[in-house]
């Protein structure tokens, strides 16, 4: 890009950009800075240096059990969303039939529908049905809100693949599933990986559905974090926040490496 891309206002735009980036990054950097403070309370500026809070937090059974529970829940949700969303993407991209727009609208609607309300509707449903298995309820809710992301990401990948190749495999005698698995699947692998990772992350961060459906023995990490914020005032809480930031950073790098961040976001 030539230097004329931004015109003469370039210095001003760069300066504003720098300030905005600080604004964007500050709440992610500060918890890390405060988590190593050798003080009994979260205070700024931090004093001293200790990794003791991390040790304390990792020993905290509430935190580690919530983390394990969230990983299990999000993995289940991602698997469910892939199983449901991949055929959906194939159907929507490769078939044409009356009412396709309605199916597409239905499947993508949770993206624009307030997730908080989706959670309320699910709570209403589960309590009407008397379904008290919190884990099952949470998985159903998380599959519902993550499937649209899988459909969107996998569809975006599928439209770039020539259907003629799969057609050729069919002509040569492969059945539908084999043709998909051996011909199309390898080509859309980055889309599938991005879809699965994105479903996992979306579920891992979800609170809007979880807050209605969790119970005392099934506490996803965001719900645990909310309760810790109101009852934990030492830098341990900053250490927990930092650990979650590091985990997200790891997921960002994984997404960028395996699928490309922009592709994963479908922009």
């Amino acid at each position, binding site marked *: 890009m030539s230097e004329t*891309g*931004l015109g003469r206002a370039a210095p001003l735009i760069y300066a*504003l*950009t720098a300030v*905005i*980036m600080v604004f964007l*990054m500050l*709440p*992610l950097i*500060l*918890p890390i800075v405060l988590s190593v403070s050798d003080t009994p309370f979260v205070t*700024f500026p931090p004093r001293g240096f200790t990794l003791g809070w991390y040790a304390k937090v990792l020993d905290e059974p509430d935190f580690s059990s919530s983390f394990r529970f969230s990983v299990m829940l999000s993995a289940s949700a991602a698997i469910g969303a892939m199983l*449901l969303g991949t*055929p959906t993407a*194939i159907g929507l*991209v490769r*078939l*044409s*039939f009356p009412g396709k727009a309605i*199916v597409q609208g*239905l499947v993508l609607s949770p993206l*624009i529908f*307030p*997730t908080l*309300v989706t959670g*309320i*509707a699910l709570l*209403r*449903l589960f309590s*009407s049905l008397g379904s008290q298995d919190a884990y099952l309820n949470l998985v*159903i*809710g998380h*599959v*519902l809100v993550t*499937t649209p992301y899988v459909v969107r990401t996998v569809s975006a990948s599928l439209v770039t693949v*020539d259907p*003629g190749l*799969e*057609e050729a495999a069919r*002509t040569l*005698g492969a059945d539908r599933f084999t*043709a*998909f698995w051996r011909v*199309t699947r390898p080509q859309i692998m980055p889309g599938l990986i991005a879809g699965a990772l994105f479903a996992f992350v979306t579920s891992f*961060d979800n*609170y809007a559905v979880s*807050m209605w459906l969790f119970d005392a023995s099934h506490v996803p990490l*965001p719900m645990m*974090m*909310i309760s810790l*914020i109101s009852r934990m005032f030492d830098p341990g809480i*900053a250490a927990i*926040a930092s650990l*979650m*930031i590091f985990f*997200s950073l790891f997921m960002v790098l994984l997404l960028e490496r395996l699928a490309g*961040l*922009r592709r994963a*976001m479908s*922009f």
Partner: protein
Amino acid sequence: MTLSTPSEPIAPAMMQARAGAAGKRSSTLLPGLMLLGPVVLFFVLVFVIPVGLMVRYSFLKQLPDGSLTTLPTLANYIRLATVDLYRGVMLTTLRISLFTTISATLLAYPLALVIARGPVWLGRLITVLVIAPLLVNVVVRAYGWRIILANGPNGVLNWALSFLGLGPVELLYSDWAVVIGSVQVFLPMMVLPLTAAIGRIDPAVEDAARTLGGDSLAVFRRVTLPLSLPGLGAGCTLVFSLTASSFILPSLLGGSFTKMLGTLVEEQILTVFDWPFGAAIATVMVVIAMTINLAYMALIERKTRTRATEAA
């Protein structure tokens, strides 16, 4: 997959593939059902029906003994619109969402311009830095803002202000804390569509405007801004509807002083157990989100139609 029997020759299939969209054959029914049947069933059972039931609930009324009226009534909606406390919550929600959307617009343009028009390496770096926070839990980001905005000398902002000799501010648990947090959390949803829109503008158009003597502001106002409006519309729609239906940010940054619909509905359902009233609040949240989205779609549609007429 294009749907044909294996005995068909390759050539027509290839031609069909090249023709673009999927084949319109008589045999779409079975694979269609197999591919899309489960998802439609799942979404109808755990999304369409529950939301329908919830909306129906909002037209019932809970009597003092906890039982429900049998006849439909608008009582919950009237209560929401007429009781000062609840009407205030509704107005606060709309006000905070509007301020957040406006602020996010102002902050998003410089970023989108640099990503779309600046050096490639910088654009990539900023893109990653803008997207990355999206993957950080909202609770964690709200916690970050609590550290910054904390009232009293321990808050980072107050520490910085006293450093400059300025008085302490009490921002946490105010509307502004919620706006600041929401802008930071939802800014990426504005930057990404805006970047895509600006990226679609041919830089030559801007160069031409400059060559013809336009200063930077004029080029932005007369060329870049109007041509980026579709992206801006998409961004505003996302930011407004996400802010209007958020819970964590008003709960952790607004506290009991700044209540929004998200915190009110949580209180009514999980603490007061007034399901019908809670369902009515939830329905209003849906109406707000849908109105914004439909308005945006209608605008886009009208624009496309105008363009089509012009072309014809």
